């Protein structure tokens, strides 16, 4: 052989380059980590049960209301405009907007469950609001809408969900917390709350709910956090 194209040096350099690019933490959706992320998404989808409920927590476990973290990405607490209404649309037969008063007239659901933050802390509060599945019925959502996207007036913070998680009996549009109306710090006038997702999926300061045939991303998901994020 006159010239060796593949020397040991080339192989080692290639393997090193492949190794680093395959496991790039700043772009975890690509390479080997990306392959494993898609595998984990399938595992999570498989583990999810539409009927398994997050356990109800006793009152004694309630996090003191002042200690429940408040989170938003705007510089100051986002405040709803006076003419705030929730727009519900996408693949629905009766798209419309709702005031909080109109949402209160839909069936109400209450639960007190544990909140799991992606950072690793937990907190307990009780929440009440209208289930997405009841809202879907009210607007005639198309069963072909496999995804639901939630957007907010908090700098456009958003997230899209798989329909089975959004239609879970413990996924609500919450207008109340711990028996009180929702406060601005926790997402007033309306936020998403669920027993089956990590905190960053639960969009606060809602403006729109769209039933969609395709998944979109999310504020944190677009930056590399996992999309399914079930608990």
């Amino acid at each position, binding site marked *: 052989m006159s010239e060796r194209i593949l020397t040991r040096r080339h192989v080692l350099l290639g393997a090193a380059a492949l190794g680093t690019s395959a496991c790039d*933490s700043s772009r975890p959706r690509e390479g080997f*980590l990306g392959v494993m992320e898609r595998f984990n998404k399938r595992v999570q989808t498989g*583990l999810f049960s539409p009927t398994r409920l997050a356990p109800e927590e006793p009152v004694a476990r309630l996090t003191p209301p002042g200690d429940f973290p408040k989170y938003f990405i705007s510089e100051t607490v986002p405040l709803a405009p006076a003419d705030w209404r929730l727009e519900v649309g996408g693949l629905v037969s009766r798209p419309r907007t709702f005031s909080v008063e109109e949402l209160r007239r839909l069936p109400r659901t209450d639960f007190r469950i544990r909140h*799991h*933050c992606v950072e*690793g802390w937990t907190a307990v509060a009780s929440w009440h609001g209208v289930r997405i599945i009841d809202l879907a019925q009210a607007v005639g959502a198309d069963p072909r809408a496999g995804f639901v996207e939630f957007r907010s007036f908090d700098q456009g913070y958003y997230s899209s969900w798989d329909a089975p998680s959004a239609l879970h009996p413990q996924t609500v549009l919450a207008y109340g917390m711990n028996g009180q109306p929702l406060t601005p710090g926790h997402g007033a006038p309306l936020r998403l709350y669920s027993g089956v997702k990590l905190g960053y999926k639960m969009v606060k300061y809602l403006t729109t709910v769209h039933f969609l045939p395709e998944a979109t991303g999310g504020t944190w998901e677009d930056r590399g*956090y996992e999309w399914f994020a079930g608990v």
Partner: protein
Amino acid sequence: MQAPEQRRPQPWPIRLAHWANVPLLAILAASGLQILAAYPRMGPRGHLYSLYPFQGAVPPSWLRLGDWLAGARHWHFAFGWFLALNGCVYVLYLALSGEWRRRLFLPRRDARDAVATLAYYLRIRPAPAQPGLYNGLQRLAYTCALVLGALSVLSGLVLYKPVQLQWLTALFGGYDPARAIHLLLLVLLAFFTVGHVVLVALHPRTFGEMVTGGRKPDV
């Protein structure tokens, strides 16, 4: 199949599983510490446990992998499967090959020898006779390491899916206790690893055996 006593000290499946653990445990420990850095406290928000001595202390950057929380979570959840798979294959091999008799701690057989070996290490008594591949104390240590690894994977599954695997969450006493146990198991595995490396340095022959498999005993 040969009886374990007539085999090389370290058959190739044992060596493969052993060396696979080195990068896997390093990746999982380092990415786990990066995840911990996002919230370096134990306990839920509002009711912090007071017993954790490093409350609020972030692990040093040279011990962490994954740059940030999302990156570290992808590393952790990617390689956790391989650690679990490696453990399952290892246990299956132990069971099917009969190697468990040489390696696992059986209290009735090994307890007395474990105490005698410990007394020897503490310079209290002379060295006990060592029939077989390992003494009782070694068997106890390796069996404990295997149990720690299994508990790490199980408590990790609690942190991954506390609601969908809520029966497992209940076994660990809830999400927050599981998180503290998960970290405690890392500390115990780190202590095991340090002791393991020190003892290998004192008995270099065992390192060669774990690389080459060693010689068959002269029967």
